[in-house]
C-alpha cells in the first residue's frame, strides 16, 4: 500500500515545469537569437527567420540561428520578466512590453520610440468570422447583440487579443451612442450576454468557433480569420465591420539580455529587417497589414481599408485603457455585474 501511495503522490505532483531555454552566442561563428512572440505569429516568423538568416549569411556575417517561443502575449511577457533569455520580444500589445520595462528594467521605458511606426512593423485589425452564407446576417457590431446570435471572443482578462476585440466594440458603441457611457456599457453588457464561452486565449476561441461549431460569429484577428479560411475551406466568411481598431503589435530589443549575450547588433538588425520590402511582403502574405504603403496596396483586395480607431488617440494609450476597462472594477467587470 505504501509504495502505491507514494507512486500516486509522485504522479499527482508531476507538473509542467516552465521550459527554460538557453540562448547563447559565441564570438564569431554562429549567433543565436531568441524571439519571444505571441500565439498567431508562428508561421510568419518561421518565414522571416529563414529569410533573415539567408541575408545574414549572404552579407558574409556568418551563421545566425533564431529560436521562436510562442504563447499568450501576457504570459510571454511574464516569462521574460522571470528570466527567459529573450533577445527580442514581438508581442501583441505595447503594454506587455511596458510591463517588462517597468518590472524588470530589461529595456528602457522609451523603447517604443526606438524603431519607426511605434515599433510596429506590421499592423492588424479585428474582424468578424461568420458561418458560410452568413445565416444570421451579421454585418456590423450592432448585430452582435441581437437575440439568438452566439458571439465567440476570448476573455479580456487573460487574452491580449480579446482586449483589442473589446476596445473595437467599445469604439463602435461610443460612436453609435455619441459617447453616452451608460448606453455604451449597456451595449457591452448585451454583447457579452450573447457570449457562451470565454476562452483564455485567441487560439482557444478559434477552436471553439471553427472546430466545435459553437456560436454564429467569432471576433478575431484579421490574420487569424484568414487562417481559419485556409484550415476550414468553404465553411466560413469574413465580414468587415463599419469600424474597427488598428492593432499595432510592437517589437523591441531586450537590451539587458542582448548586452549579456553579445547579440545587440544582431537583434537590432533582425528587427530592422522587419521593415524591409522583403519582410513587408511576407507580412502581407501572412495577412498582417504591411506598414509600407506600396506593399499594403498590393494586398488591398485581401486587406481592405476600413475606418480604424487607435488606442493612443481614442483610448488615451494602453495604460489608461487597461485601467479603465480591464483592471478589477473596470468596465468589463461592470458589464458582468461584479462591481
Amino acid at each position, binding site marked *: *500500500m505504501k509504495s*502505491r*501511495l507514494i507512486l*500516486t503522490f509522485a*504522479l*499527482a505532483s508531476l507538473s*509542467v515545469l516552465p521550459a527554460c531555454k538557453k540562448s547563447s552566442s559565441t564570438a564569431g561563428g554562429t549567433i543565436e537569437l531568441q524571439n519571444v512572440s505571441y500565439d498567431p505569429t508562428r508561421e510568419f516568423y518561421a518565414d522571416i527567420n529563414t529569410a533573415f538568416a539567408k541575408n545574414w549569411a549572404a552579407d558574409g556575417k556568418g551563421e545566425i540561428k533564431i529560436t521562436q517561443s510562442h504563447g499568450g502575449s*501576457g*504570459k510571454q511577457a*511574464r516569462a521574460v520578466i522571470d528570466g527567459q533569455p529573450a533577445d527580442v520580444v514581438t508581442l501583441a500589445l505595447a503594454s506587455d512590453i511596458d*510591463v517588462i520595462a517597468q*518590472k524588470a528594467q530589461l529595456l528602457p521605458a522609451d523603447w517604443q520610440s526606438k524603431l519607426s511606426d511605434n515599433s510596429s512593423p506590421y499592423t492588424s485589425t479585428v474582424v468578424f468570422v461568420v458561418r458560410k452564407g452568413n445565416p444570421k446576417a451579421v454585418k456590423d457590431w450592432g448585430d452582435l447583440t441581437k437575440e439568438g446570435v452566439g458571439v465567440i471572443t476570448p*476573455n479580456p*482578462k*487573460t487574452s491580449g487579443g480579446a482586449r483589442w476585440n473589446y476596445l473595437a466594440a467599445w469604439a463602435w458603441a461610443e460612436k453609435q451612442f455619441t459617447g453616452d457611457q451608460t448606453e455604451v456599457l449597456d451595449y457591452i453588457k448585451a454583447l457579452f450576454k450573447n*457570449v*457562451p*464561452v*470565454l*476562452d*483564455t486565449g485567441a487560439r*482557444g476561441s478559434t*477552436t471553439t468557433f471553427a*472546430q*466545435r*461549431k*459553437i456560436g454564429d460569429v467569432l471576433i478575431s484577428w484579421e490574420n487569424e480569420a484568414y487562417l481559419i479560411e485556409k484550415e476550414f475551406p468553404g465553411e466560413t466568411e469574413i465580414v468587415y465591420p463599419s469600424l474597427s481598431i488598428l492593432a499595432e503589435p510592437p517589437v523591441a530589443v531586450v537590451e539587458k539580455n542582448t548586452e549579456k549575450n553579445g547579440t545587440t547588433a544582431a537583434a537590432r538588425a533582425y528587427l530592422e529587417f522587419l521593415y524591409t520590402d522583403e519582410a513587408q511582403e511576407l507580412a502581407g502574405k501572412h495577412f498582417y497589414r504591411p506598414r509600407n504603403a506600396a506593399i499594403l496596396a498590393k494586398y488591398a483586395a485581401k486587406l481592405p481599408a476600413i475606418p480604424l480607431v487607435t488606442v493612443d488617440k481614442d483610448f488615451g494609450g494602453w495604460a489608461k485603457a*487597461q485601467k479603465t476597462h*480591464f*483592471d*478589477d472594477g473596470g468596465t468589463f*467587470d461592470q458589464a*458582468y*455585474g*461584479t*462591481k
Partner: protein
Amino acid sequence: MGKKRVIPGFGLSFGITIFWLGIIILIPLSALFIKAAGLGPAEWWRILTSPRVLAAAKLTFGASAAAAAVSTVLGLLVAWVLVRYQFPGRRILDAIVDLPFALPTAVAGITLTTIYAPTGWIGKYLAEIGIQGAYSPFGVFIALTFIGFPFVVRTVQPVMEDMGAELEEASAILGAGRWTTFRRVIFPVLVPALITGFTLAFARAIGEYGSVIFISGNLPMKTEILPLLIVAQLEQVKYEAAAVIASGMLLVSFFLLFLINLLQRRLNWQTR
C-alpha cells in the same frame, strides 16, 4: 515511544524529512504568503469577498466535493471489480485506470470538451434532454471527476487485496447475510482508504487548472474557477492579488483537509 528504538537512524531520517518538506513545500508556500502579505488586511478582505471570487470559490469547492464524492462511489465499485473478479482483459482495465494520471491535463480538457460540447458525441444527446455538457458548471464537474477518479481506485484497491476472503467466510458462518456482511464487515475496513481516496481526489480537484479552463467556458460569476482568477490577476501583473487568492484558497483547503483527517482518525479508532 520507548527509549531504545528497534529501528536505528531516527535522527538522520527525521533530519532529511524536515529538510525535504522544507525545500519542496514550506519554502515555496511561505514565499507565497510573504508575497500576499504585501497587501494589508483590508485589501485581503476586499479581494477575497468580491462577488467574483466568492462565486468562483463556490464552484471550485462545490464541484470538487461533488466530483470527489462520485469518484469515491464509482471508484469503490471499480476497485471491487478489479480485485474480486477474474475476467479476460482485467490487467488492461487495471492499467487504464491510471491513464488520467499520465495524460497532460490540457489534453484531457480539450478531449472532454470536444466530446461534451453541444456538437460532440455525448454532448449532443445531453443537449437533447436539456443538459449542457461543456461550458457549464456540469462541465467543470465532468473534468474534475475524470482527473480525481484514479485516486480512489488506487487507495482502495490494495486494502481490498489485503482483506482476503476469510473475513467474509467467518461472517457467513456466523450467520450474517450478504448485505450485513458488506455493511458490517467489509465496508468498515474500507472506510479509511475511501476517505483517503476522497481527500486526494478532492485536493487534486481544487487545484486543477489545465483541464477545467477548456471545458468550463470561463464565464464570470457562472463558470470561473479560482485558479483562473489567479491567472487573470497575473495577467494584470498583480502578483500580490494573485497571491492573496492563492493563500485564501490554500487556507480553506488546509482547513478542509485537516477536518477530513480528524474524521478519519476518529473512524480509524472506532473500527479498531
